[in-house]
């Protein structure tokens, strides 16, 4: 529900649910908030049952703060750890059957565009590596090939953490896990490469040990998905239970992994660059002036 075109009759606001009023009065609805201001406003995400110190939770928290128009955003998820937190937020959450999330999001996006026309309604899929690269692989790729305009975020913990530690397509080769005692036999899937081949307009990898970068990447991905085409973010969100990372070392692990094999990368099409620079003032994407010709 957007504050821009739905206004409450004065005096009736108090009959709205407290959660909604909190978001309007003390939260980010109808305002611009940023990661650097956290702690000073009420966040959309609330208490959730995810494990202490979970990096995935931190990423979800940062991602929800970064939504450009949270009151106009719908999240879609599926089975996995992430949905335990995503569903505990004061914005609508749609639960797709396992693997269906990108199919559900496709229909949802199209429906919202029919219903609301040019009013921006953002759909953001957040699901794990199992739901996206294994079981939901076909639906994920097909939504990209169809150029469905929504954002897909993979919460890549490189394991089926919710069911006891089975290997997923995104697990690294030779990784030994509780339910993969001989080690994984194959390479980690190149979902980034596939996203580019399938036509995503914005593709990025990110690790949550840099909150402002997470914010920047999510904002760009959601904005690009409004007009240009699908966007894909792959976020390393370690499972401290299955990978036995002490909770106070989760950020140290994130830093090591980022340096080692999960470096920040960003791919953006020329059309998306032009869109972001023209409509949203992203100066880094403005065409660079031609170099001055040096006189002989």
């Amino acid at each position, binding site marked *: 529900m957007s504050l821009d075109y739905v206004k409450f009759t004065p005096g009736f606001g108090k009959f709205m649910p407290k959660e909604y009023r909190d978001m*309007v*009065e*003390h939260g*980010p609805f*109808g*305002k*611009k*908030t*940023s*990661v*650097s*201001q*956290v*702690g*000073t*406003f*009420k*966040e*959309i*995400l*609330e*208490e*959730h049952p*995810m494990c*202490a*110190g*979970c*990096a995935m*939770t*931190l990423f979800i*928290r*940062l991602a929800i703060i970064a939504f450009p128009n949270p009151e106009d955003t719908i999240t879609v998820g599926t089975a996995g750890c992430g949905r335990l937190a995503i569903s505990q937020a004061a914005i609508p959450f749609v639960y797709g059957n396992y693997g269906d999330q990108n199919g559900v999001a496709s229909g949802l996006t199209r429906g919202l565009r029919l219903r609301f026309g040019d009013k921006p309604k953002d759909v953001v899929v957040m699901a794990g590596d199992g739901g996206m690269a294994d079981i939901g692989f076909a639906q994920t790729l097909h939504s990209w090939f169809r150029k469905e305009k929504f954002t897909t975020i993979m919460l890549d913990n490189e394991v089926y953490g919710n069911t006891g530690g089975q290997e997923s397509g995104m697990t690294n080769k030779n990784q030994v896990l509780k339910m993969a005692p001989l080690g994984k036999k194959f390479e980690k899937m190149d979902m980034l490469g596939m996203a580019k081949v399938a036509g995503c307009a914005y593709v990025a990898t990110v690790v949550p040990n840099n*909150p402002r970068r997470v914010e920047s990447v999510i904002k760009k991905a959601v904005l690009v998905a409004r007009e240009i085409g699908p966007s894909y973010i792959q976020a390393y969100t370690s499972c401290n239970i299955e990978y036995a990372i002490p*909770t*106070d*070392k*989760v*950020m*140290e692990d994130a830093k090591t992994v980022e340096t080692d094999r999960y470096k920040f990368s960003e791919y953006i099409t020329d059309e998306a660059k032009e869109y972001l620079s023209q409509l949203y003032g992203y100066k880094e994407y403005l065409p660079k002036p031609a170099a001055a010709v040096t006189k002989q």
Partner: protein
Amino acid sequence: MYLVANIDTEICAATSCKLCTQYCPEANTILYDNAAGEDKGFKYGAAYVAVDRCKGCAQCVWVCDNMAKHNAIKMEMIDQIGNTALTENVTYGEKTSSAVLANPVRGQM
């Protein structure tokens, strides 16, 4: 009893880097009180923990010690912290601007 994060107001208000508020995996847990340092003559406010939401992961301790290098956060037994902030006692400013800071009312556990 269990451990929760406890932030030293004086050390925090001297620098006010706000890194712990950004790195906590729990939402609405490490909050920021702009008036916390005023009484003691500090320019900035300080972060504080809503202890009923803290799961005791100590990520904020690592961030404060290793990234900010302020050593302002310690894990302490919840019954040994004098004044604790509880979520139900946390109120926010009247204005809806994001510049308005949280105004905690501290109570005994």
